[in-house]
């Protein structure tokens, strides 16, 4: 999997200058972890060597993969995004899968290690009409590393995809991930992302309902501590009527961590009777932590229901007192509340992904 040429800079690799904080969508996102590292191509073993395809899931032939790769990027408006360009320039490991009805759960694990290398994956999932799949995807880094993900999925009519991504990194590692999904009418997507421990993570779930009339459910949890930064920029676009979105994004910011959420929802004129709701909830555990959260609703259609909300709070004194008044020590009470707060998202992970949560508060009791 080693690249044959050594790129000198991130700019060379992506064919474009690194995003700067002058750019609106990178305003709060400092790529210092990246710039502090030289881009070195992956020299380790084939990261997919241990991949086992379950029943109902088959590999796309190379020629077909080449033909379909990238087809979800343009409709979700991210084909020229810098992280996507970086992925293409990094000669990613490519995996294309076709999913039939009644497929068994799929597990995908990727470990970017800690040797200061860049590991890139380009995944394409094609779900045939009526197909259903649960995907548990794990991304790890144990030291300096950069992990670049471009994951595409195309959901044909009435297909169902339940996708859990658990990404647990390291303070000197960066994660740049795009998850681009296009949905046909009658299809349903539940995407659950849990991101923690990265020096810098930028996750962009992007969904297009090409002809509306599909169900999209997004659940996100990001946890930052120390000097970590986690950024989720999501986009859901309805290009037809009767689409449905239910989005909940949760953040826990401790230490001097910084969390960014930007939730775009696009409802053009064709998307009448769209029913979309987005809620961003942030929990601040320290005075030094910082949260920036912003909905970005573009609504042109007039007969729609679009709700959005954002809250930033600390642990509730009344909840803490209630637990303490039952003999539960303050520290343990705080742990229980925190675990409860995260549970909204964690309980929606597919089974295998839930087993990959980092051990310890607030994700899993040791």
């Amino acid at each position: 999997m080693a690249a044959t040429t050594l790129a000198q800079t991130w700019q060379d690799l992506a064919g474009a200058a690194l995003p700067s904080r002058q750019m609106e969508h990178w305003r709060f996102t400092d790529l210092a972890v990246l710039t502090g590292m030289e881009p070195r191509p992956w020299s380790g073993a084939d990261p997919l060597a241990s991949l086992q395809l379950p029943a109902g899931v088959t590999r796309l032939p190379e020629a077909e993969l080449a033909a379909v790769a990238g087809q979800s990027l343009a409709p979700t408006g991210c084909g020229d995004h810098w992280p996507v360009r970086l992925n293409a320039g990094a000669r990613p490991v490519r995996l294309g899968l076709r999913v039939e009805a009644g497929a068994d759960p799929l597990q995908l694990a990727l470990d970017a290690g800690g040797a200061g290398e860049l590991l890139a994956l380009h995944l394409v999932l094609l779900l045939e009409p009526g197909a259903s799949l649960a995907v548990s995807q794990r991304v790890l880094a144990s030291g300096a590393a950069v992990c670049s993900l471009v994951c595409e999925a195309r959901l044909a009519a009435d297909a169902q995809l339940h996708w859990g991504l658990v990404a647990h990194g390291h303070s000197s590692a960066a994660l740049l991930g795009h998850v681009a999904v296009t949905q046909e009418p009658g299809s349903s997507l539940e995407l659950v992302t849990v991101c923690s421990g990265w020096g810098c993570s930028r996750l962009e779930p992007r969904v297009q309902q090409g002809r509306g009339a599909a169900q999209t459910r997004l659940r996100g949890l990001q946890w930052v501590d120390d000097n970590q930064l986690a950024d989720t920029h999501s986009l859901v676009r309805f290009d037809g009527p009767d689409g449905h979105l239910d989005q909940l994004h949760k953040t826990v910011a401790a230490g001097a961590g910084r969390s960014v959420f930007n939730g775009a929802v696009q409802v053009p004129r064709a998307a009448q009777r769209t029913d979309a709701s987005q809620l961003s909830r942030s929990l601040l555990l320290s005075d030094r932590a910082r949260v920036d959260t912003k909905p970005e609703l573009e609504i042109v259609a007039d007969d729609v229901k679009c709700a959005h909300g954002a809250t930033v709070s600390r642990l509730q004194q009344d909840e803490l007192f209630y637990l303490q008044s039952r003999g539960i020590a303050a520290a343990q009470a705080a742990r229980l509340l925190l675990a409860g707060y995260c549970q909204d998202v964690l309980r929606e992970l597919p089974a295998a992904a839930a087993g990959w949560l980092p051990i310890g508060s607030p994700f899993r009791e040791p």
Partner: protein
Amino acid sequence: MIRSDAPVLLEVRDLCASVDDRPILHGVNLTIRAGEIHAVMGRNGSGKSTLSKVLAGHPAYAVTGGTVTYQGQNLLELAPEQRALLGLFLGFQYPVEIPGVSNLEFLRVATNARRQERGEAELDTFAFEDLVNARLAVVQMDPGFLERSVNEGFSGGEKKRNEILQMALLEPMVAILDETDSGLDIDALRIVAGGVNQLASPDNATLLITHYQRLLDLITPDHVHVMAAGRILRSGGPELAHELERTGYDWVDQELALAEVG
């Protein structure tokens, strides 16, 4: 059950407290012995709920004077969880909803914390389920509520039953029940009162805080106190509650006015 030689569990002397720098309690005196059931009655704003929260250690309330001795210890210097571990229990007027925290897990953690304090072995998941299922009967509660998040989406009556269930598990020495009757229909009130009666023993004590006589028709207090303007204005036996039911609280205003003139 009054025995004048029973040990004093809780002794409140000249207790003054404020919230947000606003004085609420102006010198409360109260002595509670083992085996006793006390009722504190009074209008809204008389300081009843403040008294219960101060005793439980709510951080929003500042004690500005007086003492509280609980089983020989200075209660006021203990953290809320230490008070609970030593057997002080507050049944909340508005039990707090805690999304995402399983009721069963919460009850188990709380029960084990109290057991540990008493030198008893912690209960594992299975042993605890046996215990909790036995205690559910005290409040005729549906086991389905154990699987839900703490108080989340519970009706008013279910929340109050959950409070008494906690009391049944924690086996407190002094239980303070803050307006446990509010928001209950008559059936739920009977069940909750029945639970309190079952848990009362010669070794523990109960402090009922209530507006109304109707709770006291079901739980007979040994002592009734009328609270007004942050003080206990008058104390007596169960007949005082009946008198209040007959005459209302108007005499309280007269006594307060006299006290001010005096």
